[in-house]
């Protein structure tokens, strides 16, 4: 249940609320490609991550090899191989920061819809068969915010498939799309992240996540895809992934909106 408008009028840009003023293109005539929710100006400011990047965390860099940060993670015997890899859609530039601030902190839940198609595509392309798992909020934070942004992103993987997508999955002999499972819960309340230094954040040893007791579900030898808004240091995702791997998960990957 997420809608940009209760009137179904898509003529204004979802972010800056100015008229979109777009010329009809092939995209809007063919139902295969839903029209963008943004005006050209906003759309052009979003920078997709393309070109060479770190094979593990998708940080953009001159060559396709594992970045220094990831090498450090991989040298920690505790966390080595915990997160198979992360794929981010966009760079964390000004407009992305503004969008995420309006979405998470101002509470504009429906803004997530901007990213719906690209999250679905990324998931369907690389991760069908992987069980989508949102990064949970503490119950206090969830009441404060009114929604969990990771949950919204995870839900996009479960949207009904278009006919051509079903056809593609069939011809590729891909696995079906499993339901989103809120397998993790957050038992330690989020502290104000910004008040901690990057180093403190990296060093905080305690793991705030737990496998939810509400599910009688065996994690063993299954594949999981975590969904979250930003990959900054990768700490949160690794802590969440650790819980799944501890219980025998075969592979844990992540899809994030932005690479900070």
């Amino acid at each position, binding site marked *: 249940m997420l809608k940009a408008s*209760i009137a179904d009028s898509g003529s204004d840009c979802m972010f800056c609320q100015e008229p979109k003023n777009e010329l009809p293109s092939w995209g809007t005539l063919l139902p295969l490609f839903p029209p963008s929710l943004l005006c050209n100006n906003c759309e052009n400011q979003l920078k997709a991550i393309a070109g060479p990047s770190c094979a593990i965390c998708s940080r953009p860099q001159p060559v396709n090899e594992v970045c220094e940060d990831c090498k450090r993670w991989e040298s920690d015997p505790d966390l080595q191989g915990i997160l198979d890899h992360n794929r981010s859609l966009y760079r964390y530039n000004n407009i992305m920061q503004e969008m995420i601030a*309006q979405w998470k902190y101002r509470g504009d839940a429906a803004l997530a819809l901007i990213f719906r198609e690209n999250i679905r595509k990324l998931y369907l392309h690389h991760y069908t068969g992987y069980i989508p798992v949102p990064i949970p909020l503490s119950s206090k934070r969830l009441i404060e915010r009114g929604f969990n942004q990771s949950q919204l992103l995870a839900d996009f993987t479960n949207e009904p498939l278009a006919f051509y997508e079903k056809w593609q999955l069939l011809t590729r002999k891909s696995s079906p799309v499993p339901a989103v499972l809120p397998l993790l819960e957050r038992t330690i309340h989020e502290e104000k992240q910004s008040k901690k230094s990057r180093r403190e954040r990296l060093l905080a040893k305690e793991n705030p996540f737990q496998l939810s007791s509400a599910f009688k579900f065996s994690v063993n030898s299954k594949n999981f895809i975590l969904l979250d808004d930003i990959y900054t240091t990768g700490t949160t995702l690794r802590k969440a992934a650790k819980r799944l791997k501890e219980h025998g998960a075969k592979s844990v990957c992540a899809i994030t909106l932005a690479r900070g």
Partner: protein
Amino acid sequence: MYFCHVLLPDKTEPVCLPELAVEEKDVIQHGPDVISSLPDLPPPPQPVLASEHTPFLQNVLYGKELLLEETQCTLEELKPFLRAGLVTVRAGLIPTNKGYQCRRCHNSDPARFGLFSCARCQKGCIYCRYCIMMGRISTCSALFRWNGAPPSFSPHISLLWEGVFSKGQKRAAKTIIQTIKEKDELLVWAVCGAGKTEILFPGIETALQSGARVLLATPRTDVVLELLPRLRRVLPEAIIAGLYGKSEEKQVPAQLVIATTHQTMRFTDAFDTVIIDEVDAFPYTAETSLVQAVQKAKKKDAATIYLTATPTTTLQKRVQKHTLPVTKIPRRYHGHPLPVPRFQWCGPWKKRLKKGRLPKPVQTWCEKHIQSQMPAFLFVPSVNVLETITTILKKYYSSIEGVHSGDEDRLSKVAAFRNGTCPLLVTTTILERGVTVPGAEAAVFGAEEDIFTESALVQIAGRVGRSKEQPGGDVVFFHVGKTNAMLAARRHILTMNKAPANGEENTYVKSKHR
């Protein structure tokens, strides 16, 4: 968080309370339910309680309607005040027959309401996307307001300003004082560069001395930042707050509030005098919402002053019909006439840009300015055109810059233009107001495009000739066909230049108060 209509043991009228504040002896008449599903209750009478002296809550809530998270209190802390009627609560969204209306910004366009699955009320929650930057108001949100005595301010305020008014300014300042005293309405129509801030000083002083609260609303944050220190300097005894997107002063109770239009939306029944700067600087849709926000922020019988160089047609019509008093300042502070724009046909420029070239006259104009180091604005109709032109010019002149509203380096580029390291600034209409650079000249590229309205063109021409030392300068509209807006803009400037600078006919005030 659910709410109920409750009859308290010793009362005859029901009050709206959060479920958590209801006690055993209370009689629940409606609810518990999401607050917007409960009918609106009439405001309860102001309680005659002197015992509970609560400056903190009074300061935070007086004259405003705030979300719980903005009150800095928990529901438990608010409970005794809610039960005593010192704090009251209303729904943030009012149901209408086509959806909802937002109590804070008055948005009622269904296209501007979103829907999400809400963890607070466990339901599908509709929320206003129009004022989302101030925090989400949804169907389960309540707005809290102060229902006790208002805070009082010292009337011992005196103006410390030793500047000299031009004759036009003097007349306008007098009219403003009169308007404030009579709680009337007034349009101050002052050309760009007339010095319209100073003429407010005596009026604001008069209002504050009478114990009134004054709101100065402006569309732009940079105006708040510019006016705040100036007003603090000239009115040192007054308590003044500046409110804009990122300001820290939201909770300061002040007798003079300088706020961006968005910030005025938080106020209700709070001001005796309201001054609205650049009323026309809003896109059409935002305009009505602004007017409503200001209507809500001011008290019923408040004085209202509109301040602009380019009044909207709505305001101009009211002036013609003599339903809106007006005072005009047709002459700049330095006494020189406004530069009159000239029109220059430049051929089908879209084709030329596609080939990576500028139309000849535009190229000549740019080169002349860059080579002679004379600062020049080149206004363009869109970001796409901006990027094309900037690329073309940068091939030859690497120091020129292009700016638009989404530009991350906007401030540093404008600074470079101000200090002369960047000789020519290509810009979208974002810089049509505000930025003033002595000796600058201006050109509009593609002046026939819709985005260049009469008021935009007048404002652009107003960038030129601002300083006493260089009161003239070139304003040119490059076009492929004259539009009504272009002609109207030139007519507007010529009319202002022809108007007698000091004539009494520049002021029309109602002889009798309505």
